[in-house]
């Protein structure tokens, strides 16, 4: 059910619906698969059905005009940006709905209790700080899973560490002695691994 704002201008809705209809009809099989592959990484792993739900939510919000599709922006770029934004919002609200208690968020070794208690005195307020903390914990878990999947594969571990830090391929080639082929191969292996690891997962 589309939520229809009372002030909706019928002509505008018609225009948006028609634009969406044309754009969706024009999506090829490859476009849709590509969208799924990219969206899978948005929240650290969601199934294709969840990607579809995210896509539908983005379409629904465009129809409601709570999201504006700029006239010159290609549909693929617009819809993916909207899905990314919705996924981020849903991830935060999912943590909020789960009513995370402070006890559930024990301090991690890396941070120590000082950082943990400091976060509770965050100027944004305890709730927001806890939500943020839970979200970070989830992301950390996904990252750990990816690392453990490739533990022992030196090239992939190196590429993963480089991507984390924003280290470029040139640095890996010049300073770590990797060949371009080794880099590209490790990066593809990492992405394909993430494809498999994250596929079918649902992030709360």
């Amino acid at each position, binding site marked *: 059910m589309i939520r229809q704002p009372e002030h909706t201008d*019928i002509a505008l809705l018609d225009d948006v*619906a028609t634009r969406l209809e044309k754009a969706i*009809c024009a999506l090829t099989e490859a*476009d849709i698969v590509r969208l*799924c592959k990219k969206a899978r990484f948005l929240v650290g792993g969601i199934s294709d059905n969840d990607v*579809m739900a995210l896509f*539908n939510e983005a*379409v629904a919000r465009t129809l409601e005009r709570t999201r504006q599709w700029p006239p010159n922006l290609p549909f693929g770029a617009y819809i993916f940006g909207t899905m990314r934004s919705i996924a981020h919002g849903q991830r935060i609200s999912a943590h909020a709905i789960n009513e995370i208690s402070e006890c559930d968020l024990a301090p991690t070794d890396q941070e120590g209790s000082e950082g943990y208690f400091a976060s509770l005195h965050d100027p944004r307020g305890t709730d927001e700080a806890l939500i943020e903390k839970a979200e970070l914990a989830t992301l950390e878990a996904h990252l750990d899973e990816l690392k453990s999947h490739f533990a022992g594969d030196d090239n992939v571990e190196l590429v993963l560490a480089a*991507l984390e830090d924003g280290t470029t391929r040139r640095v890996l080639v010049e300073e770590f002695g990797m060949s371009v082929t080794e880099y590209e191969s490790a990066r593809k292996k990492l*992405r394909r691994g993430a494809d498999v690891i994250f596929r079918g997962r649902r992030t709360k």
Partner: protein
Amino acid sequence: MTHPTSKDTRAKVGRIAEAFETDVDALTDEQVLAEAREDGLDTAKLARDFRSNAMTLIAEAKRQKLALARQRLAESQQNRSARSAPRPSLEKIKKRIQEVLGANPGLAVAFRDGRSISDDDWLTLWDDFVETGAIKDQDGLN
């Protein structure tokens, strides 16, 4: 390279996701489909489901749009009949309109000979005058 801490987890995951997205964008359509099939995905069914779900949403929005237009039309007709409901008697209407026209010669320019217009014309003219404010709503009711 530095050792990551949880403080920049979001940035790290963001950079990895961005790199993967760039790589996926760089693949040809054939490569995208080949990888998906390698993973055992029924790409044709996936595309069909995506399109049909989205088109259902759009059709639903259009249905709602039509219902909204109908509702607005009905409301507008209801308002119009509600406005014209408490009309005074035809005699009072004729008398009041003639008074208004007498007091405002400009309004009489397009007015035809009063004896030749029908009762329906008088009523329509009354409604129009009420709507434009030339006659107050309650004029002639008492």
